[in-house]
Every structure is written in C-alpha cells, then in structure tokens.
C-alpha cells in the first residue's frame, strides 16, 4: 500500500513533497540527525524522484511511475536563456576538479564544485579520477550539433531525464551549479581545445 500512495502522489502532480515512504523510517532518520551549518534537516525530506530511486538496484521499477518521472524531469530542464551552451573550458576544468560545496563544513559564500573527477575520467593528464561513471575523455569527438548540446546540457541539468535513478547529481535542477558554471563545464567537455579532448599519450 506504500507503493499505491507513491503512485497517487506521482500521478496527481509531482512537485509536492510526499511523506509516504514509511512514517517510521522518516521519523527515525529525522531523529538521528541535527542541523549543521547549511545542512538542515529539511534536506532529509525526499522528493518523489529520491523516493522512487531509494530501492535496491535489483528491485524492479514500476514502468508507469518511471515513465511519468522521466518525462517530468525532461520537461523541467531549463536551457540557457541566451541559447549559448558553451562557456570557458578552463573555468570548467576548475569546476570539474573541485569537490567542495554544500557540505556542512563548506563556506556557502564560495562557489560549489562539480566534483566530476570523483566519478569520471576527463582530461587524460589527470590520473586521479574515479570510475563510478563512464570515462568522458575525448567527449568532444561527439561534436557540437544542436542535439549534442541539448543532450549534454540535459545530462548535467538532470540526468534522470534520460537515465532514471542514475547515481549522478542533478547539477542544474538542484542548483548545485549555476548556469554559467554549467556552460563552462559544457565547454570543458566539448571544446576541441579543452584538456578533455587532448590525445592520450
């Protein structure tokens, strides 16, 4: 009956934060944490997407819900107002390398990082890259067609629009990075001069 509640919430209008998970679980979690700096207890309340994606991987997902969620995420993507997708790749490299931001010990007045290297290989010269996500080295070879620009932007803005329950953060939708930072990361990925697109040795 837990699932029925989710479904109703989802189908009736996504965007309001439901409390359907399990009252007990939510209460236990709330009682086990306390506000610290910018990280308040509000962060523990799940939105419908987080709720849907909080199940072990081997559990089948409900297609109806999944489709509704994916479409909802896709519809909510905000593209650059000026139509320009590409910023400065060097500034993008800095965003990709920084893992700070939004932790309770981080200074909120300093810009957040994207921490891309935690999970992805990017510039071949950087050896300290993670493997949770696919390698993005030579990503620029995919070109700069309009479709490619919009696809890449969407992946950064809200990965769930294509890949529901991906582990990747929603950098745009959750306001982790601002529009300019996203453009800079776009350039880091796509600019032929970017270190991402230099030949591997």
């Amino acid at each position, binding site marked *: 009956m837990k699932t029925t509640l989710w479904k109703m919430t989802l189908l009736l209008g996504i965007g309001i934060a439901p409390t359907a998970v399990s009252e007990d679980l939510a209460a236990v979690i709330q009682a086990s944490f306390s506000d610290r700096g910018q990280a*308040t207890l509000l962060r523990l309340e799940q939105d419908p997407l987080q709720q849907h994606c909080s199940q072990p991987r081997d559990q089948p997902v409900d297609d109806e819900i999944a489709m509704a969620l994916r479409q909802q995420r896709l519809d909510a993507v905000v593209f650059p107002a000026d139509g320009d997708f590409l910023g400065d790749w060097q500034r993008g490299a800095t965003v990709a390398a920084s893992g700070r931001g939004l932790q309770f010990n981080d200074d909120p007045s300093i810009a957040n990082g994207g921490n891309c290297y935690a999970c992805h290989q990017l510039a071949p010269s950087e050896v300290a890259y993670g493997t949770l996500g696919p390698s993005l080295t030579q990503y620029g070879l995919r070109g700069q067609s309009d479709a490619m620009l919009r696809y890449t932007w969407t992946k950064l803005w809200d990965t769930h629009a294509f890949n529901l329950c991906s582990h990747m*953060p929603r950098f745009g939708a959750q306001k982790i990075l601002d529009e300019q930072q996203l453009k800079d990361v776009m350039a880091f990925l796509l600019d032929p001069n970017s270190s991402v697109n230099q030949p591997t040795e």
Partner: protein
Amino acid sequence: MITRWCLLWLAFPAWADEGVFDQYRDLMGDDNPAIFVIDEGEEFWYQSQGPSGATLEACDLGLGAGVTRGAYAQFPRYFADTDRVMDIETRLIHCMETLQGRDRTVTAAKPYSLRGDFGTELEALVTWLAAESEGVVIAPEQGHPKERAMYALGEEIFFYRAGPHDFSCATCHEQSDKRIRLQQLPNLTDHHDAADAYGSWPAYRMSQGLVRTMGWRLQDCFRQQRWPGLTFGSEVSIALQTYMAVNAAGGIMTAPGLKR
C-alpha cells in the same frame, strides 16, 4: 607488547589490492601508529575515573563483565539492561555512566577528535577493544528481534537518497570494483568487500594522523553526502553498523587498519 607488534605486523600485508597505490603501500611497510592508541586505550580501561573512582573492568560488553577478548566482533548487539541494540561506542558511554558515575552529556559531548586533537578517550578504548578482537570472526548477534529490526532499518537507510546531491550510502557502496578519485570503494552489499571494510575499522587515518572509529567514518560519510550532522549513538548510526556487520559476518577482524 612484542606479541601485539607481531600480530599487527602479520595482519598488514592483507592490504594488497589497492592497485595504483601498491608501490606506496609497499614503501609504507607494516608500521601502523595505531599501536600507540591501542596501548592508550588499554590504560584508559584500567584507569579509575569519575565520581565512583571505578575502572571499566566490570563493563559488560556482551560476553560478561570484564570480558574484552572477542567482544568487539559481536557488536552491535542487544543489551537487556538498556533494552537497546548498542554499538561499542554507546556501550562504553553506558559503562562510564553506570560504573564510573560519569555524566554522559560530558563523556559523549566530544567522542571524536577534532582538527588539532591527538585522540580521544573513546577512540583509544575502541581501538584497544578492536585489537582485542584481532583475528576473531565477525559475528554480530542477530538472535533478538530488536537486532533483526536494526538490520532491516540499516538496509533501508543504506538505499535512502536525499539531500541536494541525491546521495545515499549506496551511491558509492553498492557496486564492486569502483573507485572515487583513486580510492577503492568497498561494495558494502557484498560479503567479501563488507568483511574487508568493516573488519579494518577502527583505522589510523594517515591524512589526519589519528585513529578513527566506524562511528566516525559513518558521520563523515554523511557529511560528504551533504546530509546534516549524524548524531553520535543515534539509531541510524547503529542500524548502519548493524547492516555492515551482518553483511561482513564470517569475515575476520583485522583492525586497526591503516587508511588514507
């Protein structure tokens, strides 16, 4: 002392598979500064403290009053005297209160070292007790319904996504053979990985020059998950330790480990 040194020495080549850091680890050798903290913890155990001026020798860690050998490996466990499932840290705080008469608002106020500290009493006690379980099979109790409920709760929390980054424990710890930057990530849903990881805490954290406990590790995970502060001794903390310990059951305690 000699025996312990040798035990530590033998336990360490178990590091082996760090890949890119093999050469670094080889050069590090087998000398783990945690050995000092083990001694300090043992001294704390036998030190008279608090209004009662008692030692912790009568503390029941689940195997009877004063039994320390092998006790760590069976935590978290249910204690009838408190009617709760406890991890080793909350049990120690309980013993400090009941045996030594020490105020828990003081003893639990700062369980873990902050920057610039050089170890806390609790860190030392936990390290010594873990060393008292070195080579022992990880066997957390699951006989009591509350122990089983803790495991179930831990599993739910493990997959619970929240916060601005949508992170759960599972984000980093439900797949095998993955790294974050260059650090190998244990798959805590997998028995072998869980056993290696759970069994190697507490550990000397080289970046901090300190021994850190499993309890500390969890609250630092949540910091990086962009969640609020995990309360020391909270249900979430004990539930996740139970989840890991049960997944690790059958593995061998190798702590104190040596980590980045």
